[in-house]
C-alpha cells in the first residue's frame, strides 16, 4: 500500500526525519561560528575582490576623466617596473636577514635562559622589553636617539670610548645614510629576537629531561647532545618562529616609513612601502592594486609552505 501511495522520489520517512534532525543539530553547532566567519569574510575577503577589480583599471585620481578598463596592462607594468623589482628584492633581503638573524640570536638566548643563573627571571623580563615597545616608538628611538650622527647613542658611545683611549674624538658616522638597509635590519632584529627567544625557550622547556639526562650519562658531548637531540626537538618550534616572523616582517611598514622613508633613493623601499607610495604619492590606484594582487599571490606561495608546517603541529596536538 505505502509503496503505491508514496511518490517515488521522496525518501522513506524515518531516514528523512533522522536527516533533518541531524541537520538541526549541525546548524546548532554552526550558529556560534557564523558571526565570526561572516565578519571575517566581509572585512578581509571583499577588499581583495575589490583590489582585483581595481587592478584592471587605469585610474589616477589626479586625472579623474581618464579612468578606464585596461585589462592586464597594470600587471605588465608591475612585472617590468624597475622600482617594483627593487622593492621585491629589498623585501626579500629585509625579511630573510631579519628572520634568520633573530632566530639565531633568539636560539642562543633561549639556550642561556633555559639554564639556571642568578637573576634569570629579571633577565627574561628585560629581554622581552624590545618586543613590547610600540614599533613606531622603537623606530623613532633608533632613528633619533641611536643612529643620529651628532648626538645619537651609537656615535656618542664611540666618541666616549675614543676619548677614553686618549684620542681626540670618535668618527662621526651617519649610520642611516651610510648603511640604510643594515640600519633597518638591526632595529627589526632587536625587536624580533625576543619573540623568537620566547618561542624557542618554550620549546626547550618542553624537552623531556630524561632523554637529555640519558645522553649525558652516555657521555655525549654538549655539542653532540645539542645537534642530535635538542635541535631535532626544536625543529618545529624553529619552523613556527620562522613562519610567524616571516608573516609579520614581510609586512614591515612602520620601520621603513619612520627610519628611512624608503631611501636613500629606493635602497630600503620594501613592497608595502612602495605600494603605499604608489597609492598616496603617485595616486596610481590601478598600479597600486595590481602590485597588491602580486603581493597576495606571493603570500599565497609562502602560505602553502607555511600551512603545511602548521598542519603538522596541529596534527600532533589533535592526535594527543
Amino acid at each position, binding site marked *: 500500500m505505502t509503496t503505491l501511495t508514496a511518490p517515488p522520489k521522496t525518501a522513506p520517512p524515518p531516514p528523512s526525519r533522522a536527516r533533518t534532525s541531524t541537520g538541526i543539530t549541525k546548524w546548532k553547532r*554552526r550558529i556560534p*561560528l557564523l558571526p565570526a566567519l561572516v565578519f571575517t569574510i566581509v572585512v578581509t575577503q571583499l577588499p581583495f575582490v575589490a583590489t582585483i577589480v581595481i587592478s584592471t583599471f587605469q585610474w589616477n585620481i589626479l586625472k579623474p576623466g581618464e579612468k578606464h578598463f585596461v585589462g592586464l596592462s597594470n600587471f605588465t607594468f608591475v612585472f617590468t617596473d624597475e622600482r617594483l623589482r627593487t622593492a621585491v628584492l629589498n623585501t626579500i633581503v629585509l625579511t630573510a636577514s631579519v628572520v634568520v638573524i633573530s632566530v639565531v640570536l633568539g636560539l642562543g638566548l633561549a639556550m642561556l635562559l633555559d639554564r639556571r643563573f642568578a637573576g634569570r627571571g629579571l633577565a627574561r623580563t628585560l629581554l*622581552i622589553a624590545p618586543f613590547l615597545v610600540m614599533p613606531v616608538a622603537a623606530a623613532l628611538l633608533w632613528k633619533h636617539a641611536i643612529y643620529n650622527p651628532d648626538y645619537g647613542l651609537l656615535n656618542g658611545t664611540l666618541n666616549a670610548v675614543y676619548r677614553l683611549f686618549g684620542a681626540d674624538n670618535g668618527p662621526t658616522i651617519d649610520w642611516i645614510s651610510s648603511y640604510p638597509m643594515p640600519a633597518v635590519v638591526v632595529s627589526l632584529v632587536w625587536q624580533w629576537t625576543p619573540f623568537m627567544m620566547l618561542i624557542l625557550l618554550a620549546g626547550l622547556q618542553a624537552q623531556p629531561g630524561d632523554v637529555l639526562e640519558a645522553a649525558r650519562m652516555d657521555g655525549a658531548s654538549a655539542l653532540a647532545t645539542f645537534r642530535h637531540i635538542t635541535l631535532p626537538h626544536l625543529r618545529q618550534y624553529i619552523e613556527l618562529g620562522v613562519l610567524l616572523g616571516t608573516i609579520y616582517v614581510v609586512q614591515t611598514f*612602520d620601520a621603513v616609513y619612520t627610519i628611512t622613508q624608503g631611501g636613500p633613493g629606493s635602497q630600503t623601499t620594501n613592497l608595502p612601502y612602495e605600494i603605499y607610495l604608489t597609492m598616496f604619492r603617485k595616486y596610481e590606484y590601478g598600479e597600486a592594486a595590481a602590485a597588491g594582487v602580486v603581493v597576495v599571490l606571493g603570500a599565497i606561495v609562502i602560505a602553502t609552505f607555511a600551512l603545511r608546517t602548521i598542519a603538522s603541529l596541529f596534527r600532533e596536538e589533535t592526535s594527543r
Partner: protein
Amino acid sequence: MTAHAALATPGNRFTKLLRRKDDHGGAPKLSPLWTFVAWLATLAFFAPVAWMVLTSFHQEADAATNPPTPFAPVTFDQYKLLFSRDITPFLLNSAMASILSTVLVLALAVPAAYALSIKPVEKWTDVMFFFLSTKFLPAIAALLPVYLIVKDAGMLDNVWTLVVLYTAMNLPIAVWMMRSFLAEVPKEILEAAEVDGAGLLTVLWRVVAPVAMPGLAATSLICFIFSWNEFMFAVNLTATQASTAPVFLVGFITNEGLFLARLCAAATLVSLPVLIAGFAAQDKLVRGLSLGAVK
C-alpha cells in the same frame, strides 16, 4: 596523555612525576662565564629601552650631547609638556580603538572557538585554516579598497573604522588561541556533566569558564597589544579626530622639529601600557604569539 597514563604502571607514573618535578626546580646551572654572557646580551638588548626611559627624564640640553650624559639631572618636564600639548586625545583614541575592538573580537571569537573545539562542526580544521589564511594576506593589499570604501561611507577619521579593522585583524589569532585553550577542557567532564543533565549554561559556567578564563585573559592581552601598536591603517585612515598614539608620535616629530627628550618621553608613555601588560603576563604571551601552537 590519558592513553599514556593508562598504559603506564603506577610505579612508572610515579617516577615520571618525580622526574618532572626535579626538572622544574633543578634545570642545569649556567657556568659563571656563560652567566656573564647571558647578562651582557640581556643588557645589550635592554640598553635602547633604558636609554629611552632615561632620556625622557632629562632636559633637551642634556639629551642631545656627545658623548652621552646619562647622569644628568632628572626632571618630569617632558611629561608635563606632553600632556599640556594634548597627547591625551590620541591616547584616548588608542584606548578606545584597542579596547572596543578587543571586546568585539572576544564576542565573536569565543562562540566560534566553542564551535571549533568543544562541539566541533564538521570540517572544523578547514575553518581554522581559513581563519589563519587571512593572516597571510598582507594588509597593504587591502589598504586601497578599504580606503576607498571608508571614504565613500564618510567614515574616514572615525575611531569606529579602526575598531572594525582591528577586529578583523585580530579575530583569526583570537579564534586560534581560544580554540587551543578550550581544547583543554577535559572531554570526560563535559560528557559527565551532560549525562547528569546539566544545561548548556551550567556547563559553560561551571566547567568551561574556569578552564578558559586564563586563556581569555591572554587572548585579550594579545589583541590589545596588536591594536594599540597598529600604525599603517591608523596613519592612512585618520586625520585629526581619530588619530591614535603611534600617529601622534610620528606627527609630533615632523611638526615641531626634533626634541629628543620629549620624543623619548612620548615613546615611553605610549609603550607603557603594553610594557606593563606584557611583563605581567609573560607566560601567556608565548602561547598567544604562537597562536596557541606552543605551550
